[in-house]
């Protein structure tokens, strides 16, 4: 039985991608989706530790341009073994900062095949599709797939609760000091 040709662009359109590793796994992301690449060391100073129950992949937040961004551990997001993270990607048009092992190389993608329909679980939110590079297949991640709107709402609520708790603690402390 013959099938229609696989889904692909009619004309050869290329897209710059960054090949990177998270949890040891090779993945790709459109370079247009990455606003900034920073080392973990240079980023750590501006990050605040947070705790969101049920979301172990997010342990830190960063306030940037009056917007709270959340640091997602790439390995935990994909269910991979945790590996030492060296870099972060600040992802454009999202509230995600992605913690990764490192960058493998820059490359050019000419074809992006939709994820086969056999893959029918969370991975459909994770990937834009698959691309064949150098006789290998690499998943191309979806920048907005690292945090769902529900997860962002949960993280915002955790941060707010943490801020309110800090304010309450500070108020109690100053009241105690005034009494003394």
């Amino acid at each position, binding site marked *: 039985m013959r099938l229609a040709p696989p889904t692909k662009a009619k004309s050869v359109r290329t897209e710059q991608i960054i090949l990177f590793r998270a949890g040891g796994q090779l993945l790709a992301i459109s370079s247009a989706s990455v606003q900034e690449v920073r080392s973990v060391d240079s980023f750590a100073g501006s990050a605040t530790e947070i705790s969101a129950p049920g979301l172990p992949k997010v342990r830190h937040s960063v306030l940037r341009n009056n917007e709270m961004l959340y640091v997602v551990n790439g390995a935990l997001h*994909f269910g991979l073994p945790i590996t030492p993270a060296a870099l972060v990607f600040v992802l454009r048009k999202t509230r995600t900062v992605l913690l990764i092992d490192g960058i493998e190389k820059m490359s050019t993608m000419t074809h992006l095949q939709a994820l086969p329909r056999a893959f029918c679980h969370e991975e459909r939110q994770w990937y834009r599709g698959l691309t064949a590079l150098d006789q290998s297949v690499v998943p191309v991640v979806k920048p907005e797939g690292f945090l769902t709107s529900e997860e962002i709402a949960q993280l915002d609520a955790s941060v707010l609760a943490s801020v309110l708790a800090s304010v309450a603690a500070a108020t109690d402390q100053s009241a105690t000091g005034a009494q003394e």
Partner: protein
Amino acid sequence: MTLTIELDLQSFVLLRLGERRFAVSAKHIAELVAPSRIFRFPHKTPKIEGVILRRGRIVPVCDVAERLLGKRLTSRRFYLIAVRHYGPASEWMALPVTGECELINAEITPAGESDAPHVAGWISYSGDVIEVLNLDALTPGPDAMPLAGNLLETQEALR
């Protein structure tokens, strides 16, 4: 008086998984290929091992042995490239098999109500009664993928 019995013969591909044989309608088979490198990446769909590259296509590999035999295949000699339907769309899927496959003609007895959903029917061949597989029920896929969602996904992939 001559009695004519019309047999409704159909073509099937017989495949071997471990010690057992199964049949798939030949209409749903694209080709039989030697095993090639499986590319694995994180996902949450059970039974899908990864993907192979075949004729420029990225084809998911689905091990159906565990569901049919209750255990995974220890050896695999070929991939049977089958056509899996998703509503009006269809895609290739690679099924690891233990031995060579055989094309036969046989009459199918439709599955009964007590049969599992992955059984499309039964055929008799060489003294054996063989299960005809319904790949759409046997292999993973969305039960009812909305068409609009498919179109959006395709457009995104083309972007």
